């Protein structure tokens, strides 16, 4: 398993559009994607889960990927969180 902490910089937080982009991209990977936020775990492949987390701007989240393509998944996940608007 590999993981990385990322700070959400999007002023609107991880709202529906970036959450949609994120979960759609993550679903393409075989690895399981887990978002740790506020001490809780959210499935990074489910938009309901990501929206339920209500991740605001400035929040630090930890993304954990576990599986055969975990590194690629993690890189992609971090990229989306840092760039998505």
């Amino acid at each position, binding site marked *: 398993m590999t993981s990385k902490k990322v700070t959400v910089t999007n002023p609107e937080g991880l*709202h*529906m559009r970036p959450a*949609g982009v994120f979960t759609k991209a993550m679903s393409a990977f075989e690895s399981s994607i887990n978002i740790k936020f*506020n*001490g809780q775990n959210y499935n990074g492949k489910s*938009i309901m889960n990501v929206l339920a987390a209500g991740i605001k701007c*400035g929040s630090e989240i930890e993304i954990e990927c576990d599986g055969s393509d975990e590194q690629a998944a993690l890189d992609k996940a971090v990229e989306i969180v840092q760039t998505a608007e």
Partner: protein
Amino acid sequence: MKVIDLLKESAITLNMAPSSKEELYDKLIDMHCGAGNVSDKEAFKKDIAKREEEGPTAIGDGVAIPHAKSEAVAKPGLSAATVPAGIDLDAMDGAPSNLVFMIAAPKQGGDMHLEVLSRLTVMLMDESFRKKLLDSKTPKEFLKHIDEKEIEKYGAEDAAAAQKPEPAAQPQEAQPKKKVKIVAVTACPTGIAHTFMAAEALEQKAAELGYEIKVETNGSGGAKNVLTARDIAEADGVIIAADKNVEMARFDGKKMVQSKVSDGIHKPGELIEKIASGSAGVYSHKGGSASESTEEGGDGIGHSIYKHLMNGVSHMLPFVVGGGILIALAFLFDNYEIDPSNFGMNTPLAAFFKTIGDTAFGFMLPILAGFIAMSIADRPGLAVGFVGGALAVAGTTFASLVNPEANVVSAGFLGALFAGFVGGYITLGLEKICEKLPEALEGIKPVLIYPLIGILLMGVVMFLFNPIIGALNTALNNGLNAMNGASKIVLGIVLGGMMSIDMGGPFNKAAYVFGTAAIAEGNYDIMAAVMVGGMVPPLAIALCTTFFKNRFTPSERKSGVVNYIMGLCFISEGAIPYAASDPLRVIPSCIVGSAVSGALSMAFGCTLMAPHGGIFVFPVVGNVLGYLIALVVGSVVGALMLALLKKPLGEKAGLKK
């Protein structure tokens, strides 16, 4: 920001059948205008459309949440529609949408729309909740479901926010406030008062500190306000304030504080702070034995053994009380003179009560063993302990399988205690060994491996254990026969005492057999001593619960009354719950009381020609007055000794030495 405050009854339309997405959205926007949320309809409509162009807002599972941050929004609000037939909104999972919520967020609304989105999705993730919304007949009903769900998920948080509106509003803008969420379980063996007092204390303290808490109460009426997997997943930590075992596997990997239920009542703040400050240890269920899990805040091994025992005893108690009273009724409705050796079954009515009562009694020891094992090893332990307890009662051995004539002696309640603990630890051991199995076998562990291997091992252990009981019984029989020449008083002491050692096990049986053999030889005084010894334990305990109330828990006190009846009817089993929960104090007291009665009965030259005890046989007792004195004195001695040994409960909790 509560969903229920944002959604007005007038802004809900149920059972729509729109022909297009535009028609649906127009309706949702109209409802926003009607509710006064939107000041400029056309501008808002444009902003919604713009948002839709950027990507779909149908998030799957039939849910769509179109939304816009717009200058045209006068105040934040929601509108909602259900479309039973579904409508294609280009959902991320490709399925049609049937539940549509539209969020209108003011341009300068900060994170408001993200918060509403978060709350809505948390609630909508629950499929049964979605179904309730879809099935709603009226907007009122629709709102009612949302209100209930929101209270379930956010009730505590909202209550805390309502209590201090000012400080909550301020820092929220400055920095995202991290809300501490706690789940807790309270439980006590009685489950009448303490469970709920602890829950209330925790809830109040948490609200005071501004934390969110959900407390499951494992009271006598079963678990209430049960924690869902989601509650647990979301929680920062778990508080267990319990004097009996609660289901622990679900808390694997969570930060946990464990304590006695009394700490939940008296020190809720301390427990909560341990979680909030993050200083609590992480609970590991796999391979962690129950005694390990009580390390924190518990009383170590002693406390955990007490907890296992109490789990067994509290489940056994109803069987003892119900069965005992029914058997007493059987004796009452029977005529002793028809057939003394069949007393209790001679008339049809008596036989009816006796049969039911005996059936209840038959479950007593398996229940005791089963729930002790379950307390140790969680659910998988139950079956193993249950079977072990039943085998202890049956007394079956390898030898008795081959030779039906072999001496089969029930191991009694001490055997059931043994079976319960061994069964629990066998299961724990199995769980530990099975950790090494490949993950693919995970699913068959609880359905196949634990029950099959666990029960098999338990059976082997009991088949090896029971012969020891048989041998002990034989040795006792021989010992008693050798004592035949001893003084009658000594014999009375020994026989009376033996009746109380195990209340149905090898000692008890040896004394009884010796008594019946003596009757056959024409010595009626021995049976009198044996029977009076069997009546003392429940009576001694009953007296003690009446005159030394502070030594007992409320439920023990209440069932104490029943023990008067059971003692007078020669149902020694009434004492078992007390003996099982505190063997080292209760059994010696009963032994001494019974021994005194036995000796006095012999000294007064009492006789009894029937192989049965209880007040029903008093008409055939020789020297009834002496017999009564023996019974009363023995019971009083036993009760006083028990009061002396047992400390008042407050002290036992470790407050004073």
